[in-house]
C-alpha cells in the first residue's frame, strides 16, 4: 500500500465512523436533526471534497463528462433532495472502489514486474588486476567477465574457463538446469548455480537475451486485443448516452405525466448518473489481458500483444514445422555409403591411380566422402550441415572451398578443391546435377556428386522430442480441430512421424516457398472465426510465421531471429508449451468476456429497474462499485492460470 493509499484509507475510515455516529445519534433521536445533518455534511466534504474540486477544475479545462463530475452531480443532487445518507454513501463507496482499483492495478503491475526480475545488476570485470563490479551496460564486446556461483549471467557470451550448472528457469520457465563448460554459449538472465565461470562477452547488453526479453514484455501491450479496443470505443458512447437518458428522465416525465413528482424522477435520473461510469469495463478488460500476458511469460511463453493472446484462444488449425519443432533437430550420421569407387571425385581418382592401396580401403573412402560433404557444408547453419560437420569431427580446411551456393530445399553447390560438388537431396541430384538415381533408402539421405559423377550418400536420422506426441494429443484434447506438419524431408519420414504423433495431415518434400503455399491453402480451410497457428523454429520460416494468424517460434533461447520474427516466443524447445499457451489464452478471453457480460448485464438491469422506480441508490452503488470490484477480482484470476499441461509430462 502506498502513502497516498494509506491517506485515502484513513479518510474513508473517518468518514465511515462519522456516518455511523450520525446514524446512531439520529436513531436515538436525542440530538437536533441539524446537528446530524452537519455531521453528514462533514463526512461528505471529507470524503468527496477532492472529487468536487477535480470536477470543477476539469470543467474549466473543458472535460465535462468525466467521472468526477458525474459523481459530484449525483451526490449533490441526492443531498439536494434531502437524501443525505444516500448521497454520502454513494461518494463513500465510490472512493472505496477507486482505492480498491488503484491498489489492484498497482499489485498487478508489481507482480508482473516481479516476474521479470531478470535484469542483471552487475558484471564482474578485471580492472587493474582486480575483479570489479560494474554496470552490465558498460561492458564491451570481447571483454572477459567472471560469473560467481549464485550470480546472474549479465551478458550473452561464451565460456572460456570453468564448469558450472546454469538455472535457466527465469528465461525459459523450465527448471531443467543446463551445463556450461569451456566453449559453451551462456545467455544472460540465467543463474549460475555451482562453479565460477569466466566468459567472453559476445553481445552488448542491449542485444543480450535478457534485454530483448524485457523489451518484448514491456512493450507487449502496445498491440491491443480487439476486445480492449471495442471496450474503449464503447465507453466513449456509453457515458454520454446514459447521461442523456438521465436528463430525459429528469425533464420529460414531470412534464408529460400528470401528477408526476419532479423529485421522484430527479432521483431516478441520479441513479442513472451513478451507473453512467463504464469503469468496471474500462479497467477490468485490459487488466485481464495484462494478467494473461504476465501469466504466460512466467511460463516462458512470451506473447507480443493482447491481440495474439486473443487469436491463440481461437486456435483451430495448428501447423508444425518438423525439424527443431517436433524433432530435436539433432541429426546424427547413421550410415555412409560410397558408390563403389567408380564415382569418386576426379581429384581422388588421379590420386587413386597413384596411391591405389589407400583407396582400396572402404573405410577410407567413407571418411573421404564425409570430408567432402563436411567441406561443402562448412558455411551452412542448417541442422543437417551441422551434423555432418560434427560427424567429420575436424575443423574443415576453409582454403579448400571456393564459391558456395545454398539452395534452400535442395542442398548445396560448392567448389571444393577447385571442382564443383553437389551435396543435397534427391531433387538436387536430378534437377541440378542431372543424375538419375535409384530409389532412396528410407531416412534423410544426403547425396554427394561431383559434376556429373555420383559419389555416394550419407544417411542421417533425427529424433522426435519426448513431449511431441503429448503436445499433439494435448492440442486435440482442448479442441484444436486439425494438426498438420510441414517438412522439407521425404514423404516416407513425414508419414512415419505423422503416424507416430497422431497428426492429421502431413505435407512433405517442401521448399520454403512450398511451405508458404501450403499455409495459404490451410488458411482457407479454417472457419471464419478460427485461427491458424504456425509453430516453427523461427530461423528460416519468417514468411510463414508472418502469414499465419499467430506465428510461434520455438526454442528461442539464443536465437534473435526467432524473437524478432514471431508473434509468440516459446523460450525453451518444449512443444507441449503450446497447449499451455492456448489454455492461458482461452482462460484470459473467457474472463474478459465474463466481465463484459456481467458488468453490462448488471448495469443494464439496474438502469432499467431504476427508470421504473424499482431500484434505488443502493442498487446503483452496487452496479457501479460492486461490479467493478468483482470484475477486477475476476480479471486478476488470469494471472494465476492453472499449470495443467494436458497430459504432458
Amino acid at each position: 500500500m502506498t502513502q497516498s493509499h494509506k491517506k485515502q484509507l484513513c479518510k474513508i475510515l473517518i468518514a465511515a465512523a462519522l456516518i455511523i455516529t450520525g446514524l446512531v445519534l439520529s436513531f436515538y433521536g436525542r440530538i437536533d436533526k441539524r446537528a446530524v445533518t452537519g455531521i453528514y455534511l462533514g463526512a461528505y466534504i471529507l470524503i468527496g471534497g477532492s472529487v468536487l474540486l477535480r470536477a470543477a477544475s476539469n470543467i474549466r479545462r473543458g472535460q465535462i463528462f468525466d467521472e468526477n463530475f458525474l459523481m459530484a452531480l449525483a451526490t449533490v443532487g441526492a443531498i439536494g433532495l434531502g437524501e443525505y445518507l444516500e448521497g454520502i454513501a454513494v461518494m463513500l463507496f465510490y472512493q472505496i472502489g477507486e482505492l480498491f482499483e488503484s491498489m489492484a492495478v498497482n499489485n498487478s503491475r508489481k507482480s508482473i514486474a516481479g516476474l521479470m526480475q531478470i535484469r542483471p545488476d552487475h558484471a564482474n570485470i578485471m580492472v587493474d588486476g582486480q575483479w570489479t563490479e560494474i554496470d552490465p551496460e558498460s561492458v564491451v564486446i570481447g571483454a572477459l567477465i567472471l560469473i560467481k556461483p549464485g550470480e546472474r549471467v549479465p551478458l550473452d557470451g561464451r565460456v572460456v574457463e570453468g564448469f558450472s550448472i546454469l538455472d535457466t528457469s527465469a528465461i525459459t520457465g523450465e527448471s531443467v538446469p543446463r551445463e556450461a563448460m569451456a566453449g559453451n554459449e551462456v545467455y544472460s538472465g540465467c543463474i549460475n548455480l555451482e562453479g565460477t565461470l569466466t566468459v567472453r562477452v559476445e553481445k552488448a547488453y542491449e542485444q543480450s537475451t535478457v534485454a530483448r526479453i524485457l523489451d518484448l514484455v514491456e512493450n507487449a501491450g502496445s498491440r491491443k486485443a480487439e476486445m480492449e479496443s471495442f471496450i474503449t470505443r464503447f465507453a466513449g458512447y456509453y457515458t454520454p448516452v446514459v447521461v442523456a437518458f438521465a436528463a430525459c428522465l429528469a425533464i420529460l416525465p414531470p412534464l408529460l405525466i400528470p401528477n408526476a413528482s419532479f423529485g421522484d424522477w430527479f432521483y431516478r435520473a441520479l441513479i442513472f448518473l451513478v451507473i453512467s461510469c463504464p469503469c468496471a469495463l474500462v479497467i477490468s478488460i485490459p487488466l485481464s489481458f495484462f494478467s494473461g500476458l504476465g501469466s504466460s511469460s512466467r511460463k516462458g511463453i512470451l506473447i507480443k500483444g493482447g491481440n495474439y493472446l486473443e487469436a491463440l484462444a481461437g486456435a483451430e488449425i495448428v501447423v508444425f514445422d518438423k525439424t527443431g519443432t517436433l524433432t530435436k533437430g539433432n541429426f546424427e550420421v547413421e550410415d555412409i555409403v560410397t558408390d563403389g569407387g567408380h564415382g569418386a571425385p576426379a581429384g581422388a581418382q588421379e590420386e587413386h591411380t597413384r596411391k591405389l592401396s589407400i583407396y582400396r580401403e572402404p573405410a577410407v573412402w567413407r571418411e573421404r566422402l564425409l570430408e567432402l560433404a563436411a567441406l561443402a557444408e562448412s558455411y551452412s547453419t542448417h541442422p543437417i550441415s551441422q551434423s555432418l560437420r560434427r560427424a567429420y569431427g575436424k575443423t574443415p580446411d576453409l582454403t579448400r572451398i571456393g564459391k558456395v551456393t545454398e539452395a534452400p530445399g535442395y542442398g548445396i553447390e560448392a567448389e571444393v578443391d577447385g571442382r564443383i560438388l553437389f551435396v543435397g537431396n534427391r531433387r538436387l541430384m536430378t534437377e541440378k546435377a542431372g543424375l538419375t538415381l535409384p530409389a532412396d533408402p528410407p531416412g534423410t539421405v544426403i547425396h554427394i556428386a561431383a559434376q556429373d559423377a555420383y559419389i555416394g550418400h550419407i544417411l542421417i536420422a533425427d529424433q522426435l522430442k519426448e513431449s511431441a506426441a503429448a503436445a499433439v494429443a494435448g492440442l486435440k484434447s482442448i479442441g484444436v480441430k486439425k494438426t498438420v506438419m510441414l517438412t522439407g524431408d521425404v514423404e516416407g519420414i513425414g508419414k512415419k512421424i505423422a503416424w507416430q504423433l497422431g497428426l492429421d495431415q502431413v505435407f512433405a518434400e517442401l521448399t520454403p516457398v512450398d511451405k508458404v503455399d501450403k499455409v495459404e491453402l490451410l488458411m482457407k480451410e479454417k472457419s471464419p472465426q478460427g485461427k491458424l497457428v504456425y509453430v516453427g523454429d523461427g530461423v528460416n520460416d519468417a514468411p510463414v510465421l508472418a502469414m499465419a494468424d499467430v506465428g510461434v517460434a520455438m526454442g528461442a533461447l539464443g536465437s534473435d531471429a526467432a524473437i524478432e520474427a514471431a508473434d509468440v516466443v516459446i523460450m525453451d524447445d518444449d512443444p507441449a508449451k503450446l497447449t499451455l499457451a492456448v489454455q492461458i489464452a482461452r482462460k484470459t478471453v473467457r474472463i474478459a468476456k465474463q466481465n463484459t457480460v456481467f458488468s453490462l448485464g448488471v448495469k443494464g438491469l439496474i438502469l432499467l429497474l431504476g427508470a421504473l422506480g424499482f431500484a434505488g441508490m443502493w442498487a446503483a452503488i452496487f452496479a457501479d462499485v460492486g461490479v467493478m470490484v468483482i470484475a477486477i477480482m475476476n480479471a486478476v484470476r488470469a494471472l494465476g492460470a492453472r499449470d495443467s499441461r494436458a497430459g504432458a509430462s
Partner: protein
Amino acid sequence: MKKTFLLEDLDCALCAAKMEKAIGKLEGVESASINFMTRKLSLSVVDSLFDSTLEQAQKIITKIEPDCRIVS
C-alpha cells in the same frame, strides 16, 4: 519515427483511452497507443513533426489528467 514513453502517474484507465484518441488525431501522428497497465505511450510520428507533436501530446495529457507526465 517510433518511440515509447513512460507516462508517470497515469491513474485512470478511461483517461488513458481519451488521451490515446486525442493524440492519435494530432497532425503527423501515424499511430498512438497507450497501455494503461504498463503505462507506456507508443508514438509513431513523421520525423519533422516529432518534437512539436510530443509537446502537444503533453498538453493533451495535462488537460485530461493534470498530474500525468511524459517521461522518456
